[in-house]
Structure formats: C-alpha cells, structure tokens
C-alpha cells in the first residue's frame, strides 16, 4: 500500500512538473553508504586492529613481568600499557554493534578506579570481572594502579615477586581487555561490517544516526566532561584534580586527551587511520547539504573550533593534575573551547543533517 501510493504520487508530480529541474541541486543525493564504508574500512576496523595488536603486546609484556618481575620487565610493561591506553583513545568513540552490546567503554576506562575494591579482590581472590559492578576495578585505570600505584618501582617489583594473587589479578585484567576487544574486532571483521554498511537508511536505528549520536555522546561525556570538565570542577563545587584520566601516571593525561581529540577530529573529517588520506565524512556531508551560516560553511567552523580546542590543550601541562592544581583557569579555557564544538555539532550539525536523537512520535513542534 505504502509503495503503491508512492508510485501514484510520483506519477502525479512527474507529470505536472517535468523540466523544471534546478541545475544546482540536480545531484543524486549524498552517498551515505560510501561514508559508512569509509568509516568502517578505513577508520574503525584499522583502529580496532591496531588497538588489538597493542593489547597483544601488553599481554606479552604482562606475562614477562609476572613470570619474571624486574625493573626491566616493569618498564617494558609500563611502556606497552601506555601504547595500548593511547591506542584505546582512537576507538573509544565507536561504541556501536558489539562494543555497545558489551559496553566496552565502561569495562575499559572507568576512572577513578576503585583501589579499595581492587585490594579486596586481590586479597580475597574472588571476583567476577564480567559483572557490571566490577567496572571500576578493571580496565586501564585499574592496571595503572597495579603498575604505578603500589609504591616505588622496586617495591612494586618486590610485591609481584612475592604475591601470586597480584600476578593473577593483573593478568586477568589484561586478558579481559584482550578478550573484549577480540570479540569486537572479530565481529567487525565478520558479519557486522556488512550490517553496519547496509544500514544506510535515515531512521533512528540507521548506522549514520546511531554512530553520530554515539560520537556526540562520547565527545560530550567522555572527552569534554570526563577528561577536562570534571577534573576542572565544572560539575562540582571545587576542582577535582584526582579525577583526571591516568591518575597513577598523571604525566600521560594530557597526551591521552590530545590523541582522543585528534581522533574525534579525524573521524569528523573522514581521515583514514593508517595514512592521512581523506574519505567521505561528516564534514563532506555537511558541505553537501550546504550548511552555510554567517558566510562560513559549518564544516569549516567546526574544524576551526577543533583547532582552537587543540591549541588550548597544547598549552596545558603534560600532567593535567598539576595543571588543575596550579592554574585551573587554563583548564577551564580548554573546556570552553571543547564546549563550543558541542554547540556547533549537537545543535547546528544535528539540525543540518537531520539527526534524530530518540524514537518517539513528533510533529515537529
């Protein structure tokens, strides 16, 4: 019935309005599927692949360390942890499909980590890391605590030399990350890639709609608020320097933020993960729908704002905890710059691309 009526209607309008085509708009429409293919094949899957490899390295060095705890193996473990944690920043925003089902982000990077629960779990030896209630005692922040937060380097080595239960817990955490990520990557390399690409429609469950919503949620909550706003005290009475990412290795916090922001910007511009080529992207899509405002294209405004946020962040200390404690004003400034892009993307971009936020009846008022 639906299609039958459509055919009748098209018949009527084609008959009544032939040859009045506006040459400017005589396009075949934006190829959303090509954009989805670019996202899947050139950004998401390669990024997960790289992240998965970095976890394999982390796994190896964790084994070496627990089999033979020494300052040397500890250093190697720490550096692989840094690489993997940094690599995580390039995939965290893609919480769709299997990652969404597994709530990958919540099992990977909830901070601050609950050191009390970790200590209890290690001493009791009873814990089930698949339970949602254990999210704050696993993932990178928990590993961070276990490899940086248990004393001086020598004390840590000594602890792992003597304590089997510490070894087990550390290995379990690393394995858990590897297992979850392996599942997500396998799904992308299996059927999900096609499902994702085929869902090129426009309803709320289409891939474009879903991923843009996920991306926006990530940018707003995990990146803007989590990495900058919360430590800077935006959402609390006072600043909370101990809420930074990578608390037990605070020197890493700024570079994690930088990688996260660059990854978000690259996703917006469709930049391939492996090289710097550009494919179909949100930026291009915005140009296609011709979202021009105040003489500037919206894509350009958003990119300029990404740059402003980058430069505000570049000026921060590598240790964001120190930054908050000594000069929170600069941290607040970085937040403001990140915030401006929430408005440009969530208000202007969502409107221009007609992204639906939720499925309920609406008549547009």
């Amino acid at each position, binding site marked *: *019935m*639906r*299609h039958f*009526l*459509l*055919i*009748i*209607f*098209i018949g009527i*309008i084609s008959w009544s*309005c032939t040859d*009045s*085509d*506006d040459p*400017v*708009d*005589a*396009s*075949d*429409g*934006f190829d*959303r599927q090509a954009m989805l293919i670019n996202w899947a094949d050139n950004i998401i899957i390669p990024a997960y692949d790289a992240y998965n490899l970095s976890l394999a390295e982390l796994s190896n060095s964790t084994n070496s360390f627990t089999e033979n705890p020494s300052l040397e193996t500890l250093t190697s473990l720490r550096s692989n942890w840094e690489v993997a944690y940094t690599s995580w920043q390039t995939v965290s925003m893609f919480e769709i499909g299997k990652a969404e089902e597994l709530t990958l982000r919540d099992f990977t990077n909830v901070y601050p980590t609950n050191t009390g629960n970790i200590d209890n779990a290690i001493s009791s030896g009873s814990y089930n890391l698949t339970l949602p209630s254990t999210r704050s005692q696993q993932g990178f922040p928990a590993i961070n605590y276990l490899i940086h937060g248990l004393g001086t380097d020598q004390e840590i080595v000594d602890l792992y030399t003597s304590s089997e239960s510490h070894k087990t817990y550390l290995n379990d955490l690393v394995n858990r990350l590897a297992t979850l990520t392996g599942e997500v990557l396998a799904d992308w390399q299996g059927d999900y890639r096609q499902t994702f690409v085929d869902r090129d*429609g*426009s309803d709320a469950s*289409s891939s474009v709609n879903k991923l843009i919503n996920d991306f926006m949620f990530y940018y707003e*909550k995990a990146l803007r*608020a989590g990495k900058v*706003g919360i430590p800077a005290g*935006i*959402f*609390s*009475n*006072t600043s909370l320097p101990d809420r930074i990412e990578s608390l037990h290795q605070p020197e890493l916090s700024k570079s994690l933020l930088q990688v996260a922001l660059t990854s978000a910007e690259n996703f917006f511009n469709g930049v391939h993960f492996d090289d710097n080529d550009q494919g179909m992207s949100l930026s291009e899509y915005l140009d296609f*729908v011709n*979202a021009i*405002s*105040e003489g500037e294209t*919206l894509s350009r405004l958003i990119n300029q704002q990404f740059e402003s946020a980058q430069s505000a962040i570049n000026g921060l200390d590598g240790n964001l905890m120190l930054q908050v404690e000594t000069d929170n004003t600069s941290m607040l400034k970085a937040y403001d710059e990140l*915030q401006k892009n*929430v*408005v*440009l993307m*969530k*208000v*202007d971009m*969502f*409107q*221009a*691309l*007609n992204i*639906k*936020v*939720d*499925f*309920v*009846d*609406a*008549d*547009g*008022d």
Partner: protein
Amino acid sequence: MSFVNSSYFNETTKAAPLAAFRIFFGFMMLISIIRFWSYGWIDKLYIQPRFFFSYYGFEFVKPLGSFTYIIFAICGLAALAVALGFKYRLAIITFFLSFTYIELMDKTTYLNHYYFISLLSFLMIFLPAHAYFSIDAKHNQNLSYQYIPKWNIDSIKVLLIIVYFYAGLAKLNSDWLLHAMPLRIWLPSNYDLPLLGDFLQKTWVIYLFSWSGAIYDLTIPFLLLYKRTRIVAFVLVVIFHVLTRVLFPIGMFPYIMIVSALIFFDASVHEKILERIARLFKVSRKVFDNGKQLVWNPQIKKLTLSFLIFFFLVQVILPFRHIVYPGELFWTEEGYRFSWRVMLMEKAGYASFQVVDGVTGNKQTVDNSEFLTVFQEKQMATQPDFILEYAHFLKDTFETRGFSDVHVFIDSFVALNGRRSKRYIDPTVDLIKQSESFKHKNWILPFNDEIKGI
C-alpha cells in the same frame, strides 16, 4: 438566544454518520493506547524520568508511578466502550478525563494531535453518538434514535475545519513558502525511500511539497464539504496523510485524520459501513432503523448550543493569541502551542545550567542527564517555559544538596529552521528571580531575524 430556534438548528439527519464516527474514533484510540503501551513508552516517558514538565496551572497533574499504567488501562477500556456505544456518556467522559490527564502529565510529549483528541472527545461528550448502532441503543429503546439534529454532526465538521484551516494559515509564512523550511531539512533525509527518495533531494520537489501542503490544509475542509468535490478531496486526504506517515514519525495521527474525514460523507455511505460491520460481527443493523427522531429538551439544547458556540469561539481566537506578545513567535514560542502550528519548525538547542551558591560563591554546572531524559533535554533546550521550570527545579534540588541563596544561570544556544545557532536566553539573568506567567519573558534574547507571516 433566538438563533437556537432558527430553522438550521431544527434540521435533522440520519444518526449513522455519528455512530460510524464514534466506532472509528473509539477503535483508533484503543489502538493508539495499545501501540503506546507496546512500545514501552509508558515506562520510558512517564515512569523512568525523575522530573516532569507541567503546564502552567496544571502542576498538580503528575504521573502516578506504576499506577500510571492503570490510567492508560482505563483510557483504553473507555475507548473500547466508546466504540461499542456501551454506557457511552460515562465512557466518553472517562476517556476525555483520562486522556487529558495523560497529556497533562508532561508537556515534553505535547503534540497538536493529542490536543485535537482532547478537544474532540470533549465535544463528543455533548453529542448523542450512542443513539444508533450501539449497545446502549440496543438495550434501551429510550436512547435509540434513527435521526438526530443535523448540528450534532456538523459540530465535528466545524472542529475539523478549524484544525485544517488554521494549520494552513500557519504555513503562510516566509520560512515555509519562500525558503521551503523546515521541509528542506526533513525531506532530503528520506533519501532511502524507494522511488521517492531521489526526488526528495531536489529543490523543486521540496518547494512543491511546501506549497501543496499549505494549499491542501487551507482548502481540503471545503473540498470535503461540497458534494461535487468530496470524492476527490477524500482521495487527496488519503494520499496526503499516507505520505506524511511515510515521511515523518507522526504515529497514528494520519490514520485518525483519514478516518475523521469520513464524517463529511452522506449518511448512505455510513449506513453501508455500518452494515459491513454488522455483518462482520453477525449483528443486526435493522433494529436501529426505528424511524425515531431525537428532539433535544429545549432548555438543554439552548444551554449546550450556547456553550458549544463559546467553545468554538475560543478555538477560533486562541491561535491568534501570539499577537499580544512581542518578538518572533517561532523563537519565543509564546502562544505557539494549541494553535495548530504543525510541522513548522526544526529547532535544536543546547542548554547548560550553572547553579551558584550566593553565600559561598560556589558554582557548579549541571549535568542535565542526571535529571532529564534525552527527549526531555531536547525539548527543554528550545522552549523558554521548560527552561524556567527546570531552573526552579534545580534550585530546589541544589538546596537539598546544601546550597543556599541559589542562583541559576543558563548558557544556551538554539538553531531555528537551518539558521546558525544563536544565544537564546540572557546568560546574565538569574532564572530564579523569574516566575512563570502569561506575560512576555523579556529574558529571551531577540531573534534578530524576521519570519513574515500570520
């Protein structure tokens, strides 16, 4: 009130159209309730949220926790009783009250068509829709009439005419006609529809939709009214509403309007429809053809007619109330609701609140997701009365968290019909010092643009 005795108000007609209307209406409402329930929307919209936005003056109407399901159950059962014509007056009053209660619980979900349902069911309270082909009429000869006053049926037509015509008038604005907004945003995103998808990318198609939509709304009630154009008009009604169903997420509304338009047809059509229904359920329609004519008690007739004329006068005037407010209607939304302004705006916003403790000077930005659902936050960000109510809620909440002398400020941006986002509310105004009223909210920043129109 001598008009009450004028010849028009003494004309009679067959009761079948009103009976058919009652059955369709009740059935549609039952389906709507079931649909709403089955999507889990009762839980999602009325039980999960921590906070609900009230209509001014109706702050006492709130969801009742799990008992909210009972309101929906009552509403659904009342709809069924209306369709059957079983204890009709009680059923339609119950339906009107329960449905309207549901709509008043949270204005986040406001839709013009819900308002239409409330008005229509209210009107139906006064009409003898159970006089024919109903359980009431079958069991009680005193209620059974084959003929009823013509104005009983015409009053429903008047309501439909108002709805369509005002919806058409509202489309006579520069955004809709000259810029094809917001259809220019909405239509192209339906690119994945078979056949139609590619057409919807073209500018001329979008303008065609805008203009024909406006002309349709303005003319359709009159085309339905005149016998010679009625059939064509009904075909247009079906095409138009099926198209809107395909293109936009507007739920049951298109079907309700299609079925409602049947009221314009002659009684013979409804008799055929009722005959079909009668055969389907193996009941007799003939028993209702008793030749009896319903004559209203003169006093009640006079009172009812006077009241309904007042009711329609309000309907005619209310949509123009925005005239008394300064500023752009689409921007301030002062006088926007209850005016048949359907699908006129694509509005998106962002609102971030800062709560300040006046004693300690402590400041805190609110995470809206702590209190509001995604849908509520979206609606709140673009409507000043929502913003104000929420700000006062934040004050109360933060007082319980130890804040004193609370001030609430907002950082907000809104984009309207494809325009670049602009700051919406004066960020220097303490919203706690403002209170809700029918007065103009002078803390809404100016639109600095003009949308010409009625």
